[in-house]
């Protein structure tokens, strides 16, 4: 994700969580979070459990979310320079603030902190978060999206132009699953697969999620729509999806797994060569047991490190009612 994509992502997140954007630019948002977003993003479990137990009105946090640090700071600097302290940031040897108010503020801060020169912006108390790809706060947004977007049940919105008041459109229920496939040994790579299975016919399609993005979806059953009878159980559909993935995976090249298995064997041979003479030479039983334990632990570690494995897990899934008999 580049800065623009992050910016767009954040915007959609804020909209869908009903957070109120107070100020924005292409590089930042100042936002008053909705209770839902606040729970997920501000790390205040104690506060929220207090609200939940007492029923108090929650006071959500306001945050400055910077989506493009460089651009945002450039703008800030420009504003400062255009403002009333020309060259203020670079001037080093300046005397105490020129205005009487500035001097008074300095003195007040000085009293509590020893001496501090006041180039501080004290009215800014909104916590700032930099949301670049990989930052912790963005990761929290990702997590929040995942936990708030795991299971859906949606209907395709009918095309209004064709709508005839007395005509009913047939809809088919589809199981849609977005899967992450992980290929791992001591290294790892991943793939994304989206599979749809028609519950009416058992037809399987790939890139299901992409095809949904072209449609308008609604959580409510639209008028003048009827749903076709399901011929498959959900369980059967899930098995079909898994078989599809399995067939696909079988066709892949597993040179990497072969390589990992070879490394695994080589490492096991190396430690056998090291430990077996030690065990044979051990004089008393206690020492032998301790070396044997070490040997076994080391074998476990090596398997843990190298053993090739493929795992398939769901990112999210849902039931989708789409127009037509599929």
């Amino acid at each position, binding site marked *: 994700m580049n800065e623009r994509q992050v910016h767009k992502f954040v915007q959609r997140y804020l909209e869908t969580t009903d957070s109120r954007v107070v100020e924005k630019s292409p590089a930042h948002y100042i936002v008053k979070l909705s209770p839902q977003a606040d729970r997920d993003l501000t790390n205040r479990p104690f506060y929220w459990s207090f609200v939940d137990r007492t029923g108090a009105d929650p006071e959500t946090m306001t945050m400055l979310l910077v989506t493009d640090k460089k651009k945002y700071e450039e703008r800030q600097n420009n504003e400062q320079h255009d403002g009333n302290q020309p060259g203020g940031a670079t001037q080093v040897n300046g005397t105490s603030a020129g205005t009487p108010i500035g001097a008074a503020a300095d003195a007040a801060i000085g009293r509590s902190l020893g001496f501090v020169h006041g180039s501080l912006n004290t009215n800014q108390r909104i916590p700032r978060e930099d949301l670049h790809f990989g930052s912790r706060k963005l990761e929290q947004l990702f997590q929040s999206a995942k936990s708030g977007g795991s299971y859906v049940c949606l209907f395709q919105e009918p095309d209004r132009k064709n709508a005839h008041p007395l005509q009913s459109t047939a809809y088919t229920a589809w199981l849609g699953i977005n899967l992450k496939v992980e290929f791992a040994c001591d290294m790892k790579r991943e793939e994304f697969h989206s599979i749809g299975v028609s519950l009416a016919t058992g037809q399987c399609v790939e890139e299901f999620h992409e095809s949904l993005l072209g449609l308008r979806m609604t959580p409510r059953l639209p008028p003048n729509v009827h749903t076709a009878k399901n011929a498959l159980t959900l369980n059967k559909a899930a098995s079909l999806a*898994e078989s599809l993935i399995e067939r696909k995976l079988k066709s892949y090249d597993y040179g990497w797994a072969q390589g990992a298995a070879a490394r695994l064997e080589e490492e096991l041979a190396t430690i056998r060569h090291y430990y077996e003479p030690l065990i044979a030479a051990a004089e008393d039983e206690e020492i032998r047991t301790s070396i044997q334990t070490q040997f076994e632990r080391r074998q476990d*570690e090596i398997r843990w490190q190298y053993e090739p494995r493929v*795992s398939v897990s769901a990112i999210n899934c849902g039931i989708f009612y789409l127009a037509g008999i599929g």
Partner: protein
Amino acid sequence: MTQSANDLRGDQPSSILTRKLNAHVNVQFDRTWFTELQQRVDRNGPWDDWTMYQLAVEAEQSKLIASFDDLQCMRTLPALEPMPHQISTARKVLHEMSGRAILADEVGLGKTIEAGLILKEYLVRGLVNRVLILVPASLVLQWVRELNQKFGIPAIAQKKEHSWQNDVVVASIDTAKRDPHRDILLGMDYDLLIIDEAHKLKNKKTTNYQFVNQLRKKYCLLLTATPVQNNMDELYNLITLLKPGQLGGQSEFSANFVVDKRVPKNEDRLQEALSSVMVRNRRGDGGIQFTKRIVKNIPLPLSAEEQALYDAVTGFVRDRYNESGGDWSSMLALVTLQREVCSSRDAVFLTLVNLFKKTAEDSPIRAKIWELVEFIRNIQANSKAEKAMELIREMNDKVIIFTEYRATQEYLLNYFRQHNLVAVPYRGGMNRGKKDWMMDLFRGRAQVLIATEAGGEGINLQFCHHIINFDLPWNPMRVEQRIGRVHRLGQKNDVKIYNLCTLGTIEEHIVELLHEKINLFELVIGGLDHILERFEKEDQTLEQRLSKAMLEAGNTQDLRSRIQDLGDSLSRLKEEVESEEIEDTPIGAILDAVGQTVEVRP
């Protein structure tokens, strides 16, 4: 993630389905999602939001690891600019060494950065969740801060027993190996174990070695600048800790590779074996290493009043020492007094007040303390502060003043304020937020930072290249830490160090000792600990020896010759260390052939 959630539930083992894919690998289907979906269908909800659903997919797609062998972590670290050798080291450890390696770069080339890159890469790829980082106690906070700030890794310093439950924990090895922590750690499975200053594990008989050996770990990084210090066995032990059997059994190793404990044989084979588990980058000879350190001692005569106070305090301290019958260990407070006189009258005053409070009411010493306070009263100006101010005005640039004493710090803040010089304080007791604030002020409008603390806090002050040592610690490592804050990678200018040194006082001797004898201020980085390690092996620390010399010396002449002796033995050790530089030995040559030479840009 889903995997661990499943483990926690435990009651649904059937949600993982395993099928054989081919001769080498099985596929596992995690079916937790199905159970949950079925339940929601049965209950007709609750259902999640469509936009969130799409966002979740986008988030996962953006994090997808597309290939086995690129460095994914770099796109998550926009602010980090690792040097080329750090990146190539990380790649090598990840792709060729499968995550078990000794990082043996020379001091100052950024082993921490390399380890951070490797750790981050494994975290991003989801190959590592649980991490244990064992470092010397003094480096714990620095590691935590670097991982958090540079790598965005939520590392936590181990403080209490329950700290171990966090995913990324930094702790001192001496704590970790003790009860009750030991059993907790031995019960865990660590995806990655990192050990800094791993040369402390060179002896396999030590409890540290055995403890680390027993920890269960998948990947493991050992960091040390000196994988071999004295003999070949140290190297063998270190590698055996990482990968037992890599160099064969002990007797095989001796037969194959060792002529004498310091002389290897079959160099080519040994080098090959080493290069599969160790990376060692060395500083190039041609490249600019660090900028220069330019040291200037500023000798200052004391004013008549200051000299009077100094002499009075010296007399007072000697009298007390003689009264105590040579028991110097209880005299450390008095030594402090003597050192404070060289800094500021404020510092002396504070200590005297405390001493006064501690002294019995009828003691004759109370009167003597009051006499000293009278001397303080007579002092109208601080020669050192005046000189410091003059220097600062001349350089007209950012400058850090280090002092050992809080009272001196306060005094200087006040003094500078009266003269319209913008200065901010920095001290150990400040909390993190305040420290950062002071740093920001110093980076911004303040010209001067007055610090009482230099160690361990990972403050980076490369933008400043003037240091004034208002007074000097007697522990050379602390002096080195002070300079190290400024003189490090990233410093673009020569660093100018000014030592204020009052003539005719103990300070004059100290400056001479540190500067002339061990050439402390210009010493190659990393050389100092070796000298001090040897020095302290013989007896006590330099600090203790200096105190003793000062208390026992009958007069200035005597003191001078005692300090002269200390200086001589230090310069002897320095020569010894230099002559034993590992680079010139056959083992050193092999180590050097592992890895590459790096031209470090200043």
